[in-house]
């Protein structure tokens, strides 16, 4: 009976001994799986040194799991598994952030280079526009110069035309003045001719013509313009009696020499107008009257 009791107790002890290692090995299996996972992460060449805070928490969870009783094990295993996953994910995120920073630096550098190229491009375009504007300005200036030249030429031409007009008007005025002077002289000759000659010419069978002293330049022997203008009338008078002798008598108050010179000037003018010099005889006297008498002697 006593032996039986002892054998039962022994059997129980053996059974318990058999169960206990089983239980311990199951606990170790969970723990070892997670410990291995943690060690792999810690030894990872890239992730190993990262996420130190989360690694510490995972390590702590693993330690708690190792010391846990059977009841809490599933819960603590879950917590530990999550803690290791959090540590791994955080390490991966840190690695990714480091890559992100490197890429961001590259990006900044590339953006800067692109901005610099854009600025250079803009500068080139600006320069090109400046050149084009300069070309346009030069073209405009050239056109303006041409227009100015054309305008100046035009003005010069119109000035010349104006000058020509003025000249022709002047010429016309001169011609008019000359014509007027001639007409006046002719009229004076006509008036003085008959008026001066008529009373004396009548008894002398209209063979005498008298001209006033204004025939000559005052105090000189030369013919005045009025005198020259009268020559034609005198020639007509002489020609009315072809072949008759012509006597030119000039009297000048108190100056016989001047009178003679004036008579010779009259003769020269008549000769110049076609009257034969052989027909003309001249005489001058210092008498009171101041006139020219042309007498035709029809006796011959």
């Amino acid at each position, binding site marked *: 009976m006593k032996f039986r009791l002892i054998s039962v107790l022994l059997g129980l002890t053996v059974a318990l001994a058999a169960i206990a290692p089983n239980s311990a090995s199951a606990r170790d299996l969970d723990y070892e799986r997670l410990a291995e996972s943690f060690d792999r992460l810690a030894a990872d060449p890239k992730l190993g040194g990262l996420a130190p805070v*989360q690694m510490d928490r995972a390590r702590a969870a693993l330690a708690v799991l190792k010391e846990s009783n059977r009841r809490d094990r599933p*819960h603590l295993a*879950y*917590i530990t598994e*999550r*803690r290791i*996953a*959090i540590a791994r*994910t*955080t390490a*991966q*995120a840190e690695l*990714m*952030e480091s*890559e*992100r920073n490197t*890429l*961001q630096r*590259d*990006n900044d550098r*590339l*953006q800067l*280079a*692109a901005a610099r*190229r854009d600025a250079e491009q803009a500068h*080139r375009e600006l320069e090109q526009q400046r050149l084009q504007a300069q070309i346009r300005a030069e073209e405009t200036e050239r056109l303006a110069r041409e227009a100015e030249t054309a305008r100046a030429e035009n003005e010069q031409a119109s000035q010349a035309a104006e000058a020509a007009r003025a000249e022709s008007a002047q010429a016309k005025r001169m011609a008019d003045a000359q014509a007027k002077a001639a007409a006046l002289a002719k009229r004076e000759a006509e008036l003085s001719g008959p008026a001066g000659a008529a009373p004396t010419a009548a008894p002398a069978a209209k063979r005498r013509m008298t001209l006033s002293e204004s025939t000559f330049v005052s105090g000189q022997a030369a013919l005045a313009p009025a005198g020259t203008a009268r020559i034609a009338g005198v020639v007509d008078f002489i020609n009315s009696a072809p072949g008759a002798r012509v006597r030119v008598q000039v009297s000048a108050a108190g100056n016989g020499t001047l009178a003679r010179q004036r008579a010779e000037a009259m003769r020269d003018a008549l000769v110049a107008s076609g009257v034969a010099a052989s027909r003309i005889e001249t005489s001058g006297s210092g008498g009171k009257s101041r006139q020219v008498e042309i007498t035709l002697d029809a006796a011959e």
Partner: protein
Amino acid sequence: MTSSVGKIHALFAIVTALLIGCGPTKPQVDEIGIATRNLSTARAAGAATYAPLELRAAEDRLARANAAAAHGDEDDAATLASESSVDSELAAAKSRLGKDREAVDSLKQQNADLSREAARQTEGAGFQ
């Protein structure tokens, strides 16, 4: 007088006993608080997009923890809440990793485009 003083003493004793009795529940309430905060943090980090499985696990465990607490099962509540907390922490970590990965991919693409553009312009500059 003596009787009422004794009643007051008795009341103090009861209150003290209650306080001591409720003492151990304090950490359990904190576990739920921590789990709730961690869940908010995970959601704010974009866990719905980047870690939907972990987020759902955290929500599920927190709901069960609250239910357990409502039934007065403080130990279960604390266990579930602490599990929900690590679910939320993992969800937040995965969200951070997901965002970093997206940023890295985007930068790689941008840099490749910029490099290509730089090469093209350098080539083009030779002709100008």
